[in-house]
């Protein structure tokens, strides 16, 4: 069980090092909280106009959680580039440690940090009017874990291929931003023109956001829950497969 042992070693190390320099964690949390405080109150009218729910925050927070998971996951590659540059990755490649543990240990750290941020965001949103269905919130967290396991390995793969921050930043933005805009996270897609509605159905994040909303509103019979979870599972498996290959390749 070297893989499991090494995964835990790398998880522990990378979590400690991240907590020692918590800029990214704070940054990752600041953005959704700003959206919550400064953008959320504007949504009441739109949510009612689109007839997608009674409570603007029960509509908005699930999407915000997805956005946080996507951004949190998409940016982890930057940390790996710093580790590539410092020579830490190369040093570990020469040890007999499990190659997959290099990926899993770091991704586990990313997921743990992201889940903590998600819980904090939910708690902060309660005074604003968020109503939490505990079971729904827990399943939403599971969904966020899947999103993390899809996005973080993809970001690591991009980092291993591109090798510099200058090359990674535009790629991350070019992928993450349109996906978020086309997912109906900020405004209800019910208000969108038909072509945009159609495009959004092709976007995995739309289904994740719909699933999270159904969960938050105790709409357990909604088929989007299963669809969102299935799409994210497939994506996560694909991302992990792709990233293990990248970590396995000998050339740094």
């Amino acid at each position, binding site marked *: 069980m*070297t893989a499991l042992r*090494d995964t835990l*070693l790398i998880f522990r*190390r990378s979590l*400690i*090092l991240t907590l*020692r*320099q918590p800029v990214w964690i704070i940054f990752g949390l600041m953005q959704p909280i700003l959206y919550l405080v400064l953008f959320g109150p504007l949504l009441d009218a739109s949510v009612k106009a689109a007839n997608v729910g009674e409570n603007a925050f029960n509509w908005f927070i699930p999407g915000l959680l997805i956005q946080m998971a996507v951004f949190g996951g998409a940016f982890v590659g930057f940390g790996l580039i710093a*580790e590539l540059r*410092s*020579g*830490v990755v*190369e*040093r*570990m*490649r*020469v*040890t*007999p*440690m499990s190659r997959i543990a290099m990926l899993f240990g770091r991704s586990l750290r990313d997921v743990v940090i992201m889940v903590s941020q998600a819980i904090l965001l939910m708690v902060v949103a309660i005074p604003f009017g968020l109503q939490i269905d505990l079971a729904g919130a827990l399943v939403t967290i599971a969904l966020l874990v899947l999103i993390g396991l899809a996005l973080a390995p993809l970001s690591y793969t991009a980092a291993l291929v591109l090798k510099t921050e200058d090359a990674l930043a535009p790629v991350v933005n070019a992928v993450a931003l349109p996906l978020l805009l086309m997912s109906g996270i900020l405004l209800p897609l019910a208000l969108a023109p038909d072509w945009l509605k159609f495009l959004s159905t092709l976007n995995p994040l739309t289904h994740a956001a719909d699933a999270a909303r159904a969960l938050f509103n105790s709409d357990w019979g909604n088929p989007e829950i299963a669809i969102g979870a299935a799409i994210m599972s497939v994506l996560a498996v694909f991302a992990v497969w792709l990233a293990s290959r990248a970590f396995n390749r*000998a*050339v*740094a």
Partner: protein
Amino acid sequence: MTAPTKLGATMIATRDLARTFKTRSGVVEAVRGVDLRVGAGEIFGFLGPNGAGKTTTIRMLATLMTPTAGEATVAGADLRREPQEVRRRIGYVPQGGSTDPAETGRGELVLQGRLYGLSKSAAQVRAAEVLRTLDLEAAADRFIGTYSGGMKRRLDVGLGIVHEPAVLFLDEPTTGLDPQARARMWDEIKGLRERGTTVFLTTHYLEEADALCDRLAIIDQGRIVTEGTSDELKRQVAGDVITIGVDGSRERVVGLVAGLPFVREVGEEGDGLVRLYVERGETAMPQLLRFLDSANVVTISIELHKPSLDDVFLRQTGRSLRDDAAAA
């Protein structure tokens, strides 16, 4: 200066090792067929200018890069078939550092020990030993970001030896260090040899190859141009040069010494000087002085010039290594 060549068990053997890279401008042959043999307990130096193929070779031997052609055995394991076994038996210290500034020296060493399979307590004991050996105990629990360049480099070496490997690879171990830290690093490396570790290092510093390595190979443009102890290599150059200043006829002196068995070549130089090329200057000098005395030649001055590794490099490649080192 250098220890006699020990022909112990073979620790590293390569046959026709080669590596090419595909780039936009075409195929680059970084290493073109390297044959090497490094014995157990040696400090073996790989000397060459930047871009000669040193790092590519050491990265291949450390399993970081797959050779395009050729074979190698490292510490008794086959590089191609058993890379995992090679990893267990070697340590590797990369060129640009290998630590995280937000971690402590002890933290890195314990983790490294655990990645090599040690239990937590064994890794802690071993980390403490390494910290003591490398005189890093006082800084052990400080963040590496606060370390000096020399301390960081010693810690890099510590990470390479935490699992007591049979072979340690050091890629440019003293590049960027000040003279004091460099001398210190040389002592640490010699200490490793005393404890039985085989050391394979690359360098572009002549002094380093000369002072530290039992044997060395000079590499240029992906090929080994010559190999041996530092003294052997220097002897390839025409030999040592003795310059004597004489009072009186230079022609007479030239005629006299030309017949001596240890003199290879002799010629006049300006300013009353005679230049002799000899096999071994240090043994030739006393004999020469006794001979000149007995021939009633008045010797005013005598000077011995030993060829440097730069002369060797110059002879083998037609270029000077110093120009490159100065440019680097």
